[in-house]
């Protein structure tokens, strides 16, 4: 009786998993481009955003149709609504990847900053949060999702440290000012990636356990 609906759900799941894979790849490439000062990879990231935007539209459309035509309930309803929200977060994360790539192209026009700021550490932390949030979604693993949420504070802290390190550079090192602004923006983008990964985990917890933990609401 429900074969057609199950088929449509499966199709939705395949699309959101494909989008997850692409976004994870975009962020990985954007970070690689940044750390390795590779313009080719940065351009690749910028180009790949179109595919993500198309997938977002397709997924939204499919979710709306499933809601309107089948009036899903319970676990199915939670899957569809969570997918809509996760899709939105993924699209934003891809945009942040594009921003990082654009900042990278700017940074390539000037020599690297002499003072050591730990962008690689922060990039790794954000990328791992994204990866684990998507693993939590794919495997319906709310325990992992909780654990990822807790890591957001660490990324916020790293962001603050980078900001302070740049701020405390000598006036000489702070020139050109575009370079330090770009670095602060890159850190901000990485911090936002971690925020969206946290959102994804909150949706995974709702999907799996039916619990709302957003905005620190406790039972």
């Amino acid at each position, binding site marked *: 009786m*429900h074969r057609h*609906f199950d088929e449509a759900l499966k199709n939705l799941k395949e699309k959101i998993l494909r989008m997850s894979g692409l976004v994870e790849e975009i962020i990985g490439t954007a970070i690689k481009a940044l750390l390795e000062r590779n313009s080719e990879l940065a351009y690749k990231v910028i180009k790949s955003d179109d595919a993500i935007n198309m997938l977002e539209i397709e997924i939204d459309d499919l979710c709306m149709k499933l809601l309107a035509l089948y009036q899903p*309930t*319970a*676990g*199915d*309803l939670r899957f569809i609504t969570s997918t809509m929200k996760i899709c939105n977060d993924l699209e934003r994360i891809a945009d942040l990847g594009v921003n990082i790539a654009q900042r990278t192209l700017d940074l390539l026009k000037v020599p690297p900053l002499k003072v050591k700021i730990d962008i690689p550490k922060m990039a790794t932390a954000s990328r791992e949060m994204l990866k684990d949030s998507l693993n939590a979604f794919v495997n319906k693993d709310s325990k992992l999702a909780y654990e990822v949420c807790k890591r957001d504070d660490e990324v916020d802290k790293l962001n603050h440290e980078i900001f302070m390190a740049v701020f405390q550079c000598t006036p000489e090192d702070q020139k050109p000012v575009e370079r330090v602004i770009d670095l602060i923006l890159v850190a901000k983008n990485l911090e936002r990636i971690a925020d969206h990964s946290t959102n994804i985990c909150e949706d995974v917890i709702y999907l799996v356990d039916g619990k709302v933990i957003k905005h620190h609401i406790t039972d």
Partner: protein
Amino acid sequence: MKTAVETQDLNLFYGDFQALKNINLRVKENSITALIGPSGCGKSTLLRTFNRMNDLIEGVRIEGRIVIEGENILAGGTDLVTLRKKVGMVFQRPNPFPLSIEENILFAPKIHKTAAKADHERIVEESLKSVLLWDNLKDKLGKNALNLTLEQQQRLCIARLLPVKPEILLMDEPCSALDPIATERIEELMRVLKEHYTILIVTHNMQQAARVSDDTGFMLLGELIEFASTGSIFTNPSDQRTNDYITGRFG
């Protein structure tokens, strides 16, 4: 919210077959409670215990308690006429008396002598207005109720309950013979009626349960598997069997 009906360890047997297993349920006053579950799960049987309609079936044995207004209605000495005035019922198939529309409405007040003759006109009008039949039927009150459409007959059957001022209305698949627009209007009517009555509805139409009820109970093989607010049952049921049933995975 006050409790209108409460069952305590309710068991019901048809001969050797146990149709209800240890049901503990609390129905809130002035609310709509839906009972859902696959055919044969016991939901209609449970509904019929609330005005002791099962007494009419041979070989039925009931254990436990059903408390309405502090009294166990299963206790010996319960006045069934009073009980059934208090707990009215509407069935799947409309069953008007083969009398005029007016006589259908006035049947109970006349039998129970609850209304003066001078009030009859007002009672007929109010009852028919409550179920949105007045405008169509006000000039045909003498017409035989069996000549009405099925939809009108069902509305008349609900209207017929109201003059004896029941407290609880039992509805067993009340919309299954109606088209979607009539169904929606009956649902709207139920929302209006719940201000004055407590409504229990058995339905196969899950969207109907979701739309109209405040609380939902899911039954399976004679057991009440889960009972919770309708919002929580339809978004986040706690039992996997409830989830599987309402998402259409079985049943």
